[in-house]
C-alpha cells in the first residue's frame, strides 16, 4: 500500500531500482578497490608484531576510539565531535532501510515491522532527527571555527589549500546529508500522515505551498540526494583525512601499549652489539648451516617502506586536527617542525609510492611478465618531504603522542628518520657529534673524565650528621 503510493507506474519503479542497484554495486566496487590499494600501501611497511595483549588492545580501542576518551580533553571540540560521531553511527542505522527500500522498491520497509510512527519506528526516526539536527549544528560550528574564528591550529604552514578544502568539503557534505534527511521526512510526513515525525513535522510549514506532486518530487529528490551523497562520501573519505572514521578502530587496537617513554631497542643493532661484546664470537665466521646470511637492512627509515606498517596505518588514520602541533614545544616556539606535517608528509609520500608501484605493476602485467619491482623515483620521505631541520627540533617530549585522540605517534617516525640520518649517513649537527664522541670516550655527554664522577661527594666527606 505504501509503496504503491509513490510510483506512478511499475516501469518507473523498476528503473529506479535498477539505477539504485547499479550505483550500489559501483560504489562497493570502487570502495573495495580503494581499500585494497590502501591496505597494499600500508603493508609496504616493515613488519612488526602487534598481536599480543589482546584484552588490553580491545579495552584501548573501546576507550579511545569507541569511547572518544581523548577527544573530550578539549571540551568544546570534543563534545561537538561526539555529537557528530554518535549521529553518524546512529543515523546510519537508517541506511539499512534506505538500501532495502532502494533495492526492492519498498517505502520505509521497517515502519510496519517496528510499530509505525506511533511505535518504536517513530521513536527511532524521531531520535535520528534530533541527532541529525545536532550533527548539522555541530558542523556549522566547526565551519565557523575553521573559517571565521580561524583557530590557529587550522591555519599553520602545512594547512595548504587542499587540507583546508578537504575539511570544508566534509563539513558541507555532512550538512547537506542531514538537511536531505530532514527534508525527506518533512515532505513524507505531509504526504502520509503516518510518517509525521517529531522534529521534521515542524519543518512542514516551509513546504506548505507545494502540491502533492511537488512534495513527491522533493521527497524523492531528498531521498536520492541522501543516498547518493552517502555513497560518494564513502568513496571520498578513502582519499581524505576523513578516513579516520574507519581507521580509528584498527589504529587504536594496534597502538603501542608500552610506557610512552620507552623507545624500541633495535633488534638488528642488538645482534651486532652482542657480537661485539661476546669474545667467543668470530665476526668473520660464515653463518651456520641452514641459516641464510641476511641482507643487512638499512638502519632507521629513509622512506615510507622503512617505517612499520603500523606507522603507515597511522598516517592514513590522521585527520589533521593539529592537536599534536598545537602542543609541540618546537611548533610553539616557531620552529619548522610540526608533528601533524610529519603525518601528512608520510601519507602523501606513501600515496605517491603506492601509485608508482601500482603503475609499474600494471605496465609489467600487460607484457605478461611477473610482478614488477618498482625501481624508485629518486625521492624519499627524508629530505624531499621532511627536512633535517625539522627532525632536529624534536625534544622527544611525547606531547604530540599524548595529545593525539587516536594514539598516533609522530615522534616514532621522527626517531626512525633520525636513526637513518645518524646510522646510515653519520649526519648530525656538530654539537651532537661531539656529544656522541664524549659518550663514547668519557661515558658522559660532556668532556669530563669518568674518574671525576665521584667528586661531588668530596665536600660531603667533612660533614658529620
Amino acid at each position, binding site marked *: 500500500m505504501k509503496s504503491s503510493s509513490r510510483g506512478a507506474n511499475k516501469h518507473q519503479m523498476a528503473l529506479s531500482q535498477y539505477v539504485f542497484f547499479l550505483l550500489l554495486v559501483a560504489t562497493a566496487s570502487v570502495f573495495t578497490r580503494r581499500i585494497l590499494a590502501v591496505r597494499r600501501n600500508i603493508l609496504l611497511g616493515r613488519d612488526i608484531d602487534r598481536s599480543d595483549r589482546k584484552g588490553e588492545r580491545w579495552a584501548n580501542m573501546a576507550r579511545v576510539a569507541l569511547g572518544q576518551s581523548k577527544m573530550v580533553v578539549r571540551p568544546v571540540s570534543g563534545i561537538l565531535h561526539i555529537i557528530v560521531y554518535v549521529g553518524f553511527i546512529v543515523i546510519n542505522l537508517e541506511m539499512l532501510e534506505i538500501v532495502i527500500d532502494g533495492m526492492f522498491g519498498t517505502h520505509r520497509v521497517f515502519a510496519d515491522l517496528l510499530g509505525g510512527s506511533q511505535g518504536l519506528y517513530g521513536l527511532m526516526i524521531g531520535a535520528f532527527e534530533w541527532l541529525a539536527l545536532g550533527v548539522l549544528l555541530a558542523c556549522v560550528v566547526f565551519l565557523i571555527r575553521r573559517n571565521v574564528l580561524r583557530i590557529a591550529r587550522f591555519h599553520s604552514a602545512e594547512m595548504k589549500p587542499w587540507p583546508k578544502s578537504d575539511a570544508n568539503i566534509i563539513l558541507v557534505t555532512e550538512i547537506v546529508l542531514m538537511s536531505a534527511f530532514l527534508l525527506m521526512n518533512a515532505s513524507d510526513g505531509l504526504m502520509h500522515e503516518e510518517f509525521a515525525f517529531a522534529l521534521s513535522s515542524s519543518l512542514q510549514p516551509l513546504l506548505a505551498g507545494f502540491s502533492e506532486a511537488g512534495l513527491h518530487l522533493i521527497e524523492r529528490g531528498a531521498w536520492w540526494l541522501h543516498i547518493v551523497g552517502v555513497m560518494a562520501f564513502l568513496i571520498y573519505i578513502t582519499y581524505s583525512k576523513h578516513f579516520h572514521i574507519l581507521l580509528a578502530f584498527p589504529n587504536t587496537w594496534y597502538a603501542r601499549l608500552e610506557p610512552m*617513554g620507552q623507545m624500541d631497542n633495535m633488534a638488528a643493532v642488538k645482534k651486532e652489539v652482542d657480537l661485539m661484546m661476546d669474545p667467543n664470537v668470530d665476526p668473520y665466521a660464515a653463518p651456520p648451516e641452514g641459516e641464510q646470511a641476511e641482507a643487512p637492512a638499512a638502519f632507521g627509515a629513509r622512506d615510507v617502506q622503512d617505517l612499520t606498517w603500523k606507522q603507515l596505518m597511522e598516517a592514513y588514520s590522521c585527520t589533521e586536527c593539529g592537536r599534536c602541533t598545537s602542543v609541540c614545544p618546537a611548533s610553539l616556539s616557531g620552529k619548522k617542525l610540526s608533528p601533524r606535517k610529519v603525518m601528512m608528509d608520510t601519507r602523501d609520500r606513501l600515496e605517491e609510492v603506492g601509485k608508482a608501484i601500482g603503475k609499474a605493476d600494471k605496465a609489467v602485467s600487460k607484457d605478461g611478465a611477473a610482478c614488477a619491482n618498482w625501481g624508485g623515483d629518486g625521492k624519499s620521505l627524508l629530505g624531499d618531504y621532511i627536512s633535517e631541520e625539522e627532525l*632536529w627540533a624534536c*625534544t622527544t617530549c611525547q606531547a604530540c603522542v*599524548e595529545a593525539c585522540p587516536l594514539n598516533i605517534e609522530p615522534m616514532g617516525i621522527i626517531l626512525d628518520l633520525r636513526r637513518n640520518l645518524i646510522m646510515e649517513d653519520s649526519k648530525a649537527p656538530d654539537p651532537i657529534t661531539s656529544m656522541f664522541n664524549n659518550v663514547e670516550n668519557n661515558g658522559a655527554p660532556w668532556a669530563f673524565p669518568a674518574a671525576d664522577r665521584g667528586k661531588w661527594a668530596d665536600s660531603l666527606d667533612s660533614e658529620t*650528621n
Partner: protein
Amino acid sequence: MKVQTIAEMTATGKSPDVLFWVGCAGSFDDRAQQITKAIARILDHAGVNFAVLGGEESCTGDPAKRAGNEFLFQMQAAQNIAVLNGYGIKRIVTGCPHCFNVLRNEYPELGGDYQVMHHTQFIQELIADGRLRIEGEQPFKGKRITFHDPCYLGRANGEYTAPRAALQQLDAELVEMRRCKKKGLCCGAGGAQMFKDAEPGTAEVNHLRSKEALDTQPKIIATGCPFCNTMMTDGVKHHGAESKVDVKDIAELIADAANLI
C-alpha cells in the same frame, strides 16, 4: 657523611640495598651537584644503605638513543648492565628522569632488570614509611610553589603524584601551571636538545615554559630533573625574575625542610 662507592662497600664484604644512580648531570654539572648532594643527604639521614657506582657509572645512552644513535646507546647499555649485574644490583634510585626512563623501560629487554625509582618516588616512600620526617619550623610554609613536570617522569612514565605528594610535606601553597601533568610543556632540553643549539624559531622553549611558571606568581619553581632545572633557571633569568623566584629540585626543598642543608 661519607658516600661510599659500591666497590668500596663490596671490599668490606657488604652490599647496598639501594644503588644511587647519579647520572651525568648530577655528577658533573655544578648546579646539579647540589641536587645530588641533597639526595645523598636524604638517603643518609633516612638510614638507607646505599652506594654509588662512582667512576664505574657511565652514561645510560639516553641522549645518544634519542638523537638516533642506537649503536652507541646499546653499547652503553651493555657496559652498564654488565657492571650492574656484576654487583647484583636489585634496586636503583636516580635523580634524573632520563636515566630513570632508560633504566626502567629500555634496559630490561637488554638483560638489565632492576626495580628503578625516581628520587621523588623514593623520597615519598621514605616519608610514607616514617623513615623521613619533616618537622619543626617550616622554611617554605605558605610560600607559593609550582611544580614543572619533567616529560620523562610524567608523560613518559605516568608519575604525577609522587613529586606533588613530597611537596605537600612542605606546608606550602602548591599552584599548578596552565599546562601541567599530562599536558605539561617540555623545558626544551630533552631528545638531546640540551647538547645543541636550537633550530631557528620565534622563541626559546625554556623561555615559554618559564613564563608559564612565572605566570603562577610562585616563590619557587620546583623541578625533578637536572636538565629542567638548568632550562628553567635560564628562563627565569631571561625574564629577569631570578631575584624573586628560586628554581629548586624537590630533593633540595625536602632536604632543606628536614634541616639537612
